């Protein structure tokens, strides 16, 4: 596509997205869109580390939970606005990611993936047993109905919608910037061949840590958003292994290592999950998950590169 058409298409898409909550005033379609944005944003953040830098983390729920818990605890103890809590959560997640990264980045491939699972399990278990932070019972975010923007709580889903959209655009913008920067080339060099990258003088360990920091910080922003949107958090909802896996799944479905892959993945997976849950979920027989698992297998086999790979192949064929 020529540059002009691309820009026009982007603008039309943005206007449509901005107009969506004005047209659809019911809470449900807005909620679905908000969750698409949230998961797309989390998968985009994960994609920076796994897709571009090639370090497959299966423990990203740790950073999501860090964001959710930091802002919530700050609201409860100090009455600090969640916006500041969001920032604090991101900073804490970045710090935590550097501490975690130091041992786990010595590992490669499956060893790395399993070590991140282990870290995730450790942190989740600690949170379950940490009574001061709510323990297994979780924490309620204190209700504030002043309607003040600072409280980060809204009766109307429309405002959540725009915040989620803004977070997604931020994540996409950062990814775009990285893609075209020297850092992005370094990331991809590390992904393709770590030893070759090191032999060319790329400080591999430092750049892995950098990818981890960016990824963790962005993920934590999503965590705070989730806490303020749902108004209740517990280790089982913000830190489970299943969340870490869902985040990767969204990116894998869309296409890892591509800018739009995570968004495409979320736009398919979230409504799909909703549809199977609504039509098949109520029986208590987990038929929805049965189909879900089957689809994941089929996609992994027939399209391991995700949907973006399919689109790229189509484009190449048409010239």
């Amino acid at each position, binding site marked *: 596509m020529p540059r002009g058409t691309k820009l026009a298409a982007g603008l039309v898409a943005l206007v449509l997205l901005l107009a969506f909550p004005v047209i659809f005033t019911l809470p449900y379609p807005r909620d679905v869109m908000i969750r698409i944005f949230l998961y797309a944003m989390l998968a985009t953040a994960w994609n920076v580390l796994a897709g571009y830098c090639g370090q497959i983390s299966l423990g990203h729920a740790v950073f999501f939970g860090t964001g959710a818990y930091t802002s919530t605890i700050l609201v409860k103890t100090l009455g600090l606005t969640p916006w500041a809590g969001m920032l604090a959560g991101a900073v804490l997640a970045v710090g935590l990611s550097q501490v975690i990264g130091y041992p*786990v980045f010595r590992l490669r491939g499956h*060893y790395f993936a399993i070590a991140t699972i282990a870290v995730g399990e450790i942190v989740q278990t600690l949170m379950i*047993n940490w009574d001061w932070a709510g323990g297994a019972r979780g924490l309620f975010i204190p209700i504030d109905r002043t309607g003040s923007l600072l409280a980060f709580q809204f009766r109307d889903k429309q405002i959540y919608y725009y915040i989620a959209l803004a977070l997604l655009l931020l994540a996409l913008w950062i990814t775009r910037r990285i893609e075209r920067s020297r850092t992005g080339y370094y990331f991809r060099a590390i992904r393709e061949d770590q030893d070759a990258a090191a032999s060319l003088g790329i400080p591999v360990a430092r750049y892995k840590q950098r990818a981890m920091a960016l990824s963790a910080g962005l993920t934590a922003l999503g965590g705070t958003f989730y806490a303020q949107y749902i108004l209740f958090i517990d280790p089982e909802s913000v830190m489970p292994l299943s969340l870490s896996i869902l985040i990767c799944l969204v990116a894998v479905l869309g296409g890892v290592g591509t800018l739009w892959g995570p968004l495409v993945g979320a736009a398919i997976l979230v409504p799909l999950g909703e549809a199977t849950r609504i039509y098949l979920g109520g029986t208590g*027989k987990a038929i929805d*998950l049965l189909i879900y698992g089957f689809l*994941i297998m089929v996609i*992994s*086999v027939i399209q*391991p590169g995700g949907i973006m790979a399919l689109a790229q192949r189509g484009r190449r064929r048409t010239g």
Partner: protein
Amino acid sequence: MTAEVLLQGIVSGLLMGLVYALIAAGLSLIFGLMEIVNFAHGEFLMLAMFSTYWAWALWRLDPIVSLPLTAAALFLLGVATYLGLIRWIIGAPMLAQIFATFGLAIFLRSAAQALWGVDFQLVKDPLIQGRISLGGLFIGMPQLAASVGALLAFVFLNWFISRTETGLALQATAQDRQAASLMGINTQRMFALGWGIGSACVGVAGALLTIFFYVFPDVGSSFALLAYVTVALGGFGNVPGTLVAGVVVGLIEALGGLLIAPALKYVAVFLVYLLVVLWRPQGLFGRF
């Protein structure tokens, strides 16, 4: 804490560790053969346990009696998984491989839930029960039987891999796929066999566990997590290393529960694992 309690902890950890080792051995064998981690391993264990349970519920077959049946059923499941799923993703990127088996895990777990519900089931009144007392030390007979069974299965597995011609062909395939096929080894058949044997290991472990452990669709997940850590701790693809690592995991779990807090026993296991890989990234006995 008295020395007696500590000793009791060590013995229980040792017994459980042998079962963990057998679960992890199957995983390690498959990884060594084709560098694919089966993330549905816990669900295979769950199916083995359900198969043992149903053999008892429907035909009153004791877990020990139905053990060969369960092992055979899991062998077939492993071969079927290879033929139906794994064969198609051999050259695929690591992420696609991870998610193919994750999808299988979700599928199997929900299938079990749809078919058999989420209630906890228990084999009542098994042949092996009770406990023996050794100088003030109590050992549950089911646990003892399970660990002896696991050890026997391990010895058999090791004999098969290192002493039989088929086992050597398996090893050759693991070392160099192309060279093996040049020597006339049918690597596809070896892969299928590896999946069969690896799953049969979990079948034996599942049957042994069912003597004293309850069965439900999600039972595999905690065992699977321990199995991944055990495999990584022992070194991927190193089956004897897995035995040592399994015992280490069992001991840390038991002693962590005793000395720190029962709720934090897995934290102890995972922390020790992280410390070990910080020192030896390839695991205790692995090579890159």
